[in-house]
């Protein structure tokens, strides 16, 4: 995939998303601007930049795009798992899950090291709760 073209397409898509969305709110006149006016103006500028980037990408050399799906997916899943477990069970379990799942992204995998890291982080969380007064639902 051409990185420059992908960037142009992404910017254009974001601009269209916000720009067309702005029409759902009253635009108003310039002297009495409605809530839709400013996002419309800004996304028009962004649309201009997006289209320019697309055109420019056709004029200059292609650049391959690097994208690795695995690591970012593991990290996002470990964050969501943390939030879910903290909400429905408790935060200590959430922290343990966060450590054990996130470590998948950086092999070699070692259960012993994970346990140590998780224990230290739980201890820090306890410290935050007791000493700094953060309201963490640890248990």
């Amino acid at each position, binding site marked *: 995939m051409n*990185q420059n073209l*992908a*960037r142009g397409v*992404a*910017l254009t898509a*974001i601009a269209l998303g*916000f720009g067309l*969305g702005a029409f759902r709110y*009253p635009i108003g*006149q*310039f*002297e009495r*601007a409605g*809530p839709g*006016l*400013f*996002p419309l*103006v*800004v*996304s028009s*500028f*962004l649309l201009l*930049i*997006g289209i320019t*980037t697309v055109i*420019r990408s056709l*004029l*200059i*050399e292609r650049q391959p*795009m*690097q994208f690795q799906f695995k*690591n*970012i997916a593991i*990290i*996002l899943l*470990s*964050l*969501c798992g*943390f*939030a879910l477990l*903290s*909400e429905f069970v408790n935060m200590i379990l*959430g*922290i343990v899950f*966060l*450590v054990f799942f*996130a470590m998948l*992204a*950086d092999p070699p995998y070692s259960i012993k*090291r994970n346990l140590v*890291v998780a224990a*230290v*982080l739980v201890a820090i*969380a306890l410290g*935050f709760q007791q000493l*700094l*007064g*953060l*309201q*963490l639902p640890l248990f």
Partner: protein
Amino acid sequence: MDILHNLAFGFEHALTLQNLLFCAIGCVVGTLVGLLPGLGPLATISLLLPLTYSIPVTGALIMLAGIYYGAQYGDSVSAITMKIPHASSIVACIDGYQMTLKGRTGLALFTAGVSSFIGGTVAIVVLAALAPALGEVALMFGPADYTALMLFGFFCVSFVTTGSLLNGLAMCFIGVLLGQIGTDVNSGVLRYTFGLPFLADGVGVVSVALGCFGIAEIAKNLDGHEDRSPFKGKIKLMPTWPEFKRIIPSALRGSVVGSALGILPGGGPVIAQFAAYALDKKVSKYKDEIGKGSIEGVAGQAAADEAAARTSFIPLMSIGIPENAVMALMMAAFIIKGIQPGPNMISGHPELFWGLVASMWIGNVFLLVLNVPLVRYWLSVFKIPYQVLFPAILFFCCIGTYSINNNLEDVYITAAFGLAGYLFLRLELDPAPLMLGFILGPMMEENFRRSLLLSRGSFSTFVTRPISGTLLALIALLIAWQLLVFFKRTTKDVKVPVAVEQ
């Protein structure tokens, strides 16, 4: 002597035991973060923002400022000893690392420490003298001028930090649009919330910062998987007298360059370092040695770095417009603490302003003491493997986001911005301008709508007012110049097909 009187007043507030403690914590955490890979000052400040809720205003801001300039210093230590280029210390890698290769690490670190101290001291004098004066200028600004100034800031930041005007501007505008999410203050209409109740107050600044700078950065580091070899060399700190004498002129030059460039829109430590290095290469007595590991090559840029880190507070505190992404985040911190930075801040909260200025000098002393004699202990930080570090950073991101509203839904928003930030990185879009746009966005809309209201819907107000007219003319010049450069380069490429674009 007004300044002396004011500074004495500031020291009175900064030298309380409590504020000294916060300053020290800020410097230590900042240095630590600067040394470690994968956490910049932006991510750290947003991580610690929730922790400052229970701290008094002055102490909280002193601590956050300490993190910022401490991180700038820590960056240069890792650059000198191991050639780990953080975004903000590329220049320190050149001569500093060359000195390490020659076995003179200690001298390089000493030079960086002393020069930073000199740079910081000069910058504080500039800050104390200039900020109140500039605050009076700011009172002449109308809403149209503020709108134009913010737009001008976007252009400068895009141009300076990302090198590509188009990409940087795009990120600024995306940031502004993200800032539109939530309730419109003028009409009460909910914008872009998709019916989700937790979006009614808008997206949290901490979620955006941690997602784009913390989580995206971790994923990128894991993709790259670089092995770092810890520094094992010996460190002999004390220089000889002739060596010491070489530090001073270069450090003073760097301080002046850094102080000046720190004030300009889009300015800040990075550009100041490059400028100071280039200046030393032109005028220094030892210019032939620069690039091969000379004292001047380290001293000038280190002084400029620290000076610019401090003078970049001037536009924020006197005009009320942050000039780069870190300052935008500082502004968010000010507002969370109930202080509106701007022309009225100095007169309205003198103890805060002068206390902060004085604390910056105290922080200077802390950094010198912390870093020059104790630097070898700091370097042991690098023995922590990334496998231990990154789950810890993730944990702090989770706790940081959660504690703002004690709300777990914010963690999902942070994760979403982590994905967005990662995509931006892979598309070579720098997320720093996004941060600036995100924080300035609501202010820009307010001023834009107000200036149109005052002019009864006529856009000519932006051109006819002298301040905004000048700023818009500068923007037009910048665009014209960029277009010229681009077309010159593409036509050249057609003629000489061998030439490969960088």
